[in-house]
């Protein structure tokens, strides 16, 4: 990951926070005054380095963790926006990344009953009795990040 890759990655994250969605390769190309193919290559390198996640066989951003851009059961309100979390960890990570309070509406994976969690000042103040389960051992998290 070179300096340009890091600049592009920073642009992606700042765009996510500013616009609530990740930039396309065309938008990032305009921002950097460079060609879309070069940006696409950079997105792929960032994906390979686990700095973001692309939808399979595309250069569209699926996750700029902890932010997710595909529907999931995990809806997060934080920093004045509604977000989607990939999983339990990332859902709680959105207020963490934004350093803001956050409210999470989600569901029990077993029965789909609605669960609510709230973070205030970095502390979980609602949902303390909720459990989080991780199926995949840490060394294999990136084998199939969508399943993890």
């Amino acid at each position, binding site marked *: *990951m070179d300096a340009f890759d*890091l600049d592009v*990655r*920073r642009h992606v*994250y*700042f765009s996510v*926070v500013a616009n609530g969605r990740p930039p396309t390769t065309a938008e990032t190309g305009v921002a950097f005054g460079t060609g879309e193919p070069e940006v696409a290559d950079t997105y792929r390198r960032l994906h390979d*380095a*686990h*700095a973001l996640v692309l939808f399979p066989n595309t250069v569209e951003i699926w996750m700029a*963790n*902890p932010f997710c851009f595909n529907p999931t059961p*995990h809806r997060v309100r934080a920093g004045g926006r509604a977000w989607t979390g990939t*999983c*339990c*960890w*990332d*859902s*709680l*990570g*959105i207020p*963490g*990344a*934004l*350093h803001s309070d956050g409210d999470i509406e*989600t*569901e*029990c*994976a*077993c*029965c789909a*009953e609605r*669960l609510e*969690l709230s*973070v205030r000042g*970095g*502390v*979980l103040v609602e*949902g*303390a*009795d*909720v*459990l*989080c*389960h*991780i*199926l*995949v*051992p*840490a*060394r294999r998290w990136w084998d199939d990040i969508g399943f*993890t």
Partner: protein
Amino acid sequence: MVFLRSEEHLARWLGANGFEPGATVCAPKMNELALEWWGTRLDAGWRPRPVVESQAILDRLGLVGEFWSLQA
């Protein structure tokens, strides 16, 4: 990585899907982990975190043992 309302629901979910149990963390602990893990993601000077530093975060939170080892 999923939310579940109780141990009973966890057992039922694992059984219904034929999953082997992994690791269960209470939501307050997951929130601590999330804050430590993702808290620097938006820093302007962000750089990839070395595995040893990521492992140290898990260790600090008591998430230790083979399941939590980031390296094979």
